[in-house]
């Protein structure tokens, strides 16, 4: 290429630098333009699905496989478009923020398997729909309504909604109380401790939804969240300061990195790296880790604090339920099988915390009876553990659910029988403030 007039004017010494600078500038801009073009091309032809795409597919699948019949049975007075909206997962996170209880299960239909029947449904109020047996919402005044509130969800990959603890309780109570329809509402939410369980009931009561029976099944998360702060708390503390002091002020590079990751090209690369669908890159994953190793040393001291807090919450829940004419029952439940041996995994902080905590809780409850409406259902037979370990079962199993449901039923039926044979009449009031949202 012939040198330009300007080149000649500025002299020979600056020519290499100018050429290099010009080359760097052109190349940088070229790369930028190439990157934009590449993203547009990938977006048009490679079809990297976004979260929104995945949620839309899920929604269409639900409409095809299940439809709105189930939801219409729960809320017959809702319009079709309201039911369609209620059945659609909107964020695909798994949880949504909820006042007071801090979080609750995201509502809508979630696909949990390849079959057209592999769907789990959560009502916008927060309860998991028990298939065809689900009672109407709000609870009808002529039925016995039972709110099952727990930090452990008894539905999982290996177990359907019909085999969940609330479903089993509903089935048994219908047999025990044949005079009235019995409707159980499963408000269990993974990660809730007994304080959140109490707050869940309070929130429902504040909105005018009063159950006849409230069952609180807590324990595991009281021990795992030993200082009483719910799941997400530390994360929220940091986030709140970020939002308020810094206004989402990450360093500029953070935004650039996120921009690259969120771009079609970035999603494609990331999905290959992690071997997941691009739409699942930011899906349902826990934010808070299990208790730190330092928690191990504090388990013994914290154990008493955990039980004291649990007992305080139980007393408040009981009194509140009583004020609204509801009967409250409490069980200290086991953690569902986790596929690990109870005798090893010494380094597993959560397992050790639970084992130590259960022993302390059992000792405390043994010496301090909690009344006829309480039962320690935490002991898990060793053969069940062995079976779970053998099968590699993670989460609830039909056997563990049946055992827990049976334990809960014992305390309910014993308490209601002992109070003037109430099992025969069932705890139903003629009028109560149950209303639609």
């Amino acid at each position, binding site marked *: 290429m012939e040198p330009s007039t300007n080149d000649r004017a500025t002299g020979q010494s600056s020519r290499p630098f100018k050429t290099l*600078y*010009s080359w*760097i*500038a*052109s190349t*940088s*801009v*070229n790369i930028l333009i190439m990157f934009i073009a590449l993203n547009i091309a990938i977006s048009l032809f490679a079809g990297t699905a976004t*979260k929104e795409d995945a949620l839309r597919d899920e929604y269409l699948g639900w409409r095809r496989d299940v439809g709105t019949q189930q939801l219409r049975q729960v809320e017959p007075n809702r319009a079709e478009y309201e039911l369609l909206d209620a059945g659609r997962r909107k*964020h695909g*996170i798994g*949880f*949504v*923020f909820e*006042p*007071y*209880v*801090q979080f609750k299960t995201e509502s809508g239909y979630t696909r949990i398997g390849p079959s057209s029947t592999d769907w789990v449904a959560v009502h916008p109020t927060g309860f998991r729909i028990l298939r065809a047996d689900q009672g109407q919402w709000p609870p009808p005044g002529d039925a016995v309504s039972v709110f099952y509130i727990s930090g452990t969800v008894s539905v999982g990959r290996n177990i359907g909604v019909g085999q969940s603890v609330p479903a089993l309780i509903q089935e048994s109570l219908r047999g025990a109380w044949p005079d009235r329809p019995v409707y159980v509402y499963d408000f269990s939410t993974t990660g809730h401790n007994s*304080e959140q369980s109490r*707050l869940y009931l*309070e*929130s429902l009561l*504040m*909105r*005018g939804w009063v159950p006849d029976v409230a069952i609180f099944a807590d324990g595991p998360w009281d021990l795992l969240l030993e200082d*009483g*702060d*719910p799941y997400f*708390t530390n994360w*929220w*503390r940091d*986030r*709140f*300061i970020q939002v*308020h*002091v*810094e206004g*989402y*002020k*990450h*360093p*500029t590079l953070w*935004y*650039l990195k*996120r*921009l690259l990751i*969120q*771009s079609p090209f970035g999603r494609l690369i990331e999905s290959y790296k992690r071997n997941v669908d691009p739409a699942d890159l*930011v899906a349902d994953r826990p*934010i808070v880790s299990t208790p730190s190793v330092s928690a191990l040393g504090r388990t013994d001291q914290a154990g008493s604090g955990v039980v*004291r*807090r649990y007992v*305080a919450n139980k*007393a*408040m829940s*009981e*009194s*509140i339920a009583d*004020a*609204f004419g509801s009967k409250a029952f409490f069980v200290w439940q086991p953690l569902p099988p986790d596929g690990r041996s109870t005798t090893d995994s010494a380094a597993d902080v959560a397992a050790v915390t639970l084992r130590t905590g259960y022993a302390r809780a059992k000792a405390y409850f043994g010496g301090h009876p909690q009344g006829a409406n309480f039962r320690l259902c935490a002991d898990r037979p060793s053969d069940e553990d062995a079976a779970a370990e053998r099968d590699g079962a993670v989460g609830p199993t039909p056997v563990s659910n049946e055992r827990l449901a049976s334990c809960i039923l014992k305390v309910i039926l014993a308490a209601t029988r002992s109070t003037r044979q109430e099992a025969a009449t069932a705890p139903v009031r003629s009028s109560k403030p149950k209303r639609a949202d």
Partner: protein
Amino acid sequence: MRRSLSDWGLTILEIYRPAAIVLFNVSLLFVVANIAVNWIFGPFSVYENHLARLDQSRGEYSVEFARKLYPERSDAEIEELLTYQHYVGVLYQPHIQVVSERGIFSGWGFHETGFRFIGLDQGPWPPDPSALTIFVFGGSTTAGSGLEDDETIPAHMQAQLRAALPGAPINVYNFGQPGFHSPVERVYLESLVADGFVPDIAVFIDGYNDFHIWHEAPAMTEHFQRWFIEAQTEGAHHAPQWFIMKGIEQLPLMRWINSWRPPPTLQHDFGGEIDPRGYDGYGRPHGFYNERRKLNRVIEKYFANKKIGDAVGRAAGFETVFTVQPVSTYKFSGPQPNGAMVGKGLRTKWGYPLLKAYIDENPPGGRFIWCADIQENVNEILYVDRGIHYNNLGAELTARCIVERMMPLARSKL
């Protein structure tokens, strides 16, 4: 004359290369400017900017004063606890969303549990079991926005109770929090009870915020719901330009420019002329404020909450006192030099008569105090801003109403 394809290509190349160099030069200049600004004027840490202002007076509070509030802490730890850390004013708190940030700033003092000091007569923490312990809950009118620590309603309550019952050990704790309404206050109390902090008496002072925030949820719920989704999806729902703009905002040059904007401080809120447009819900038609459905819901909410609060008191062995506070829109004709109330709090204008009628027809059980009438014939300034927060006299009169009515209860608990 027609140009050939190669001529067009040459023309594009002639334009493209200089354009690319100009673009590159501008970008380079921008980077250099950012480095220079950060080097000369930085660092642009919000914390550091706020901390620079923390050398303002700590008021009368000293480490000696704070030792009774932090009995198991060293003096160095206490010094740290008395120092604002984040300068947010409120920090995240599980269940109730926010609680006042601990520390002392410009004479305002807050304990890490969230209560505001009531001056040098502040009782110890944890509460002395041999003393009569009263927890007072409410919104910003109870916390005492615009007032010194010893001018708030709980501060006056303690002074009045101690004066009426000389020698009796009585400690009042001001758990008022900006933006709280009755359900949030009750949950706050429950958290304290669950943690083992049980008062002898819990007093709730409500009315204004219950109508302002007519539903059950805490005031910032919508924000939290949005933040949760945004954070969990790590911005997946944002368009590319959002990341670019956010990234640019964080550059030293942009932060230097933003640093010239006035910070949101209490002085700015209360020091100058108050712009009514800043009030939440300003300028709506009357139909917005007197919507009967919402007003009725407030009343339902208030008494459902009272029922739960009373039950908690029974369970934990303390007394509850529910008080309806005076508001400038109800039976008040005194001067309001800063202007009359505006915004969503105006619901009280229609809500209070409804609430009074409801109470007359359905007398509340338990301990319930109606203090809304106390300002009826008071022709003095009682509000520090546009008819929302009390001045010292307004706080004193409200405290007197509560103390006089709960005196038999206080005597019985001593």
